[in-house]
Every structure is written in C-alpha cells, then in structure tokens.
C-alpha cells in the first residue's frame, strides 16, 4: 500500500494538531465555534504556548480554522476545509462521513475511474500493473469484508489511478485513499444490514471480486476499451447495491 502522507504526530505540536483536528472534523467542536484562547489550550494540554501556536498554524493551513488578532481562532465551516488533505480525511470518524461527501465521491469516481483504467491499459509500466495485481491477490486472500479487505480494495483503485500516468489522477488516489476506504466500509455495512443472510453477502463479495478481476485482466492484457468497460461495470454494480441499500433502509424505516 502507498504510504499516505500524514502530518507527523511526534512532538507536542503535532500531537496537539491531530487532537484538535480530530475534534473539529468529528464535530466535537462545532463549525463556527471560537476555540479556547492560547493560554487556556496550553494549560489544558500541558503544552507550551509556542506549541499551541504551531498546532493552530497547521490546522489553519488545512482550512479548518482562521486566527485573527484579538478576535481569536474560529472553526471554519466545512466547505472551507481542505477535504483533499489526507489528514482532514483521516480525521473523519469512519461511521460519520457526511452522506453528501460519499455521494459526491462516487459521482467523481464514475467520471474518472473508467478513463484511468483505459489509460492504465494503454500506458502503465509493469511495476504499476503488478501493484494492481498484488492488491487483487490480497483481496482474494482475505475474502471477506474486513479492515484488511477494505485496505486491499482501496489500494486496488489507487493503483489504477497511479497506473494511469496522470499526475492529477494519482494525486486524487493519494488524497482520497482514506475516504475511499471509509466509503467501502459504509457500503458493506449497508449491504450486510440490508441483506442479512451470510450466503447472500458471500455472493455479493464474490461478485465484487470477479468484477475487480475483470478490470485487472483487461489492464494486464493491454486492452484499453475492455478496461474502461470493466471499470464501468464494476461501478454500476456498486451503484445498484447502493440503491438497494438505500431502498432497504427506506422500507425498514
């Protein structure tokens, strides 16, 4: 799996940045709220005022807060947060990623992944292709919805974006990784709730792996058109399941 670049947690200010960042993103500190003063934060966390100031700089760089002389530091609304920052995404609690973010993410995936698969089949080097295969093999080895499975699934999709050779797509893979994994988890949790029975879940997982394998095969065979089509079919299956889950939820409510 690719190393996701997160802000170093080592050191007092790094630790504090992660702590306060997570509280803001999870909603424990509300949007628009005024943060406690530097002196208060420094006392509460046993950090120097210098460390507090540096932690707030890090959060400001990610669009989470805005510091003004005299007025203090305020939490910015969610629309200002840099949702493409790996730390910000990682700070979302897995079961509380806002549904509109998941919907927007899927819409973007539908636009980009088939073309990335096409490009990967057309121009990926062997290293990039083997990375995709390694992720697929990990999915097959794990074989059931679990943290390891979602991680392998994420690195499969991330691998295709890297293999596309487009630096912008690659960057999307890097920043969306954690959000993508979270969305898989939310998705499978929904499928399990909606379908319930073990054998039905089993066949949903099997279907998903077959579709992933079809995308990989087309890329490995250097068949761009088939890669595009296989990726579209994979996404269409996910979409059907999402609709099914949403419908199931509406009916059981």
């Amino acid at each position, binding site marked *: 799996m690719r190393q996701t*670049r997160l*802000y*170093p947690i080592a050191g007092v*200010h790094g630790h504090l940045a992660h702590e306060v960042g997570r509280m803001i993103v999870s909603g424990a500190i509300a949007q628009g709220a005024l943060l406690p003063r530097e002196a208060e934060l420094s006392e509460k966390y046993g950090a120097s005022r*210098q460390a507090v*100031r*540096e932690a707030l*700089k*890090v959060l*400001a*760089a*990610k669009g989470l807060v805005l510091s003004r002389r005299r007025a203090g530091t305020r939490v910015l609304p969610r*629309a200002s947060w*840099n*949702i*493409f*920052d790996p730390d910000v995404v990682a700070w979302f609690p897995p079961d509380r990623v806002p549904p*509109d*973010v998941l919907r*927007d*993410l899927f*819409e*973007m995936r539908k*636009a*980009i992944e088939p*073309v990335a698969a096409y490009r990967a089949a057309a121009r990926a080097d062997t290293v990039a292709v083997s990375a995709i295969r390694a992720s697929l093999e990990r999915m097959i080895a794990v074989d059931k919805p679990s943290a390891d499975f979602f991680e392998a699934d994420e690195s499969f999709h991330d691998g295709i974006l890297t293999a596309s050779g*487009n*630096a*912008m*797509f*690659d*960057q*999307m893979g890097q*920043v969306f990784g954690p959000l993508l994994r979270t969305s898989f988890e939310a998705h499978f949790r929904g499928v399990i709730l909606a379908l319930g029975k073990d054998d039905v879940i089993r066949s949903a997982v099997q279907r998903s792996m077959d579709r992933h394998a079809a995308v990989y095969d087309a890329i490995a065979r250097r068949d761009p058109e088939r890669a595009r089509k296989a990726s579209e079919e994979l996404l269409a299956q996910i979409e059907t399941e999402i609709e099914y889950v949403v419908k199931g939820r509406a009916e059981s409510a």
Partner: protein
Amino acid sequence: MTHALGRRIAAGDWAEGERIPDEAALAEAYGVSRQVVREALKVLAAKGMVVSQRRAGTRVLPRDMWSLFDADVLAWHPLDAIPARTVADLLELRQLLEPLAAARAAGRGDQDEIGRIGEALRALEAAEPFTDAFYAADLAFHLAICQASGNGLVTRLSRILMPLCDSIGRMRRPEHGAVDLAARRALYEAIRCGDANAAQKLLADIVDEGHPDRLDRPSLD
C-alpha cells in the same frame, strides 16, 4: 514569509532532498524573527513540501509528496515553468469533471447559481478578447458551472485548481483562433433549460479548445 519560502521551493531554488538554510540564517536573510521562520516552516510541512527533523534540519521533499491540490502550492509555481505534462494532465481531468458539472448544474436547476453563470457569460461577451478582463471572465464562467453542480468535491477541486487553470488559460492567444462565444452562450442556455445532455457535450468541446496541441506547447502523444 511562508509565501516567499514556498515560491522559492516551488521555483526549485533548492533541489528535492536538499537541506534549506537553518532557522537563524533564514531569519537573518529575511529580517524576521526565528519564531516567524519556524511557523512558516510548519505551514510548508503541513503542505508536504518540507520535512523538519531535529539535528538533520529542514529538507525539501520530493515533488510527488507535495499537496498538488492546494491553491497556495499551485500559485507558488512560476507561471512560465508549468510542464506540458501538467497542462495535459489537468486538461484530461477537466475534460472529465466539467461536463459532469454542466450536466449536474442543468439537472439541479439552482436559479441563483445559474444566474452567476449568466453574469460571467455577459462579462465574457463584453470583454475585449485576450485581455485581463476576458481571461478573468472565462475563468469565472467555468468556476460558476462547477459551483452550480452541487457536488462539493468538484467545487472544491475547481477552486484549488483555479490558479493553474488561470495561468494555462492566459497562454491562449489570438493566433490560436477565436474563442467560440456562441458555444458558451449555447451551453448557458442548455443549463438554464435543464438540458443535461446538451450541456455535457457543449462543455466537453469547449474544454477541448484548450488542448496543448492547439496552444504553444509541445504535443505529448
């Protein structure tokens, strides 16, 4: 201080992996306190451009670690040093996302947002071609469409990529042919009338006008 250092790193004043001068030296060179230097370095670290290690000092990270999707990082790049590859990659991304945004904007029909697309269009039609006002209105037109899509990720991405899109948009000169204003007017009408298919197709053609093959840029394929 952050901007000054960011620009120097983006311009390649220090190579990837190279150690930049220490806090004391930077503070003296820029006539600021060490505290200011330290905070600037924290911001650059948060954007993935440098890493500071006790004793080893601060090093420039490889470019593929930088937050490319960060408006500051993009704005710090010198305008004349955008590689052709980046132009092509960006265009490919826009080619996928903007038609989607146009279709969604048409389907959603938020009249306030659509009104803003109309305003940008009128500014574009009124501007003398290839002047500052013209480039600015063209950019505003595309941003308004992304905004009207209602997809928060697309909107956010369009704002982040704006400085880069602006620099690339300004490479467009009269010798590359006239800008098709009628197509932009038709696009606006399609969005206004809720015709998602037409909107999607019209915007795909418009984005294609900026293809590297049609600008003063080496072709890639």
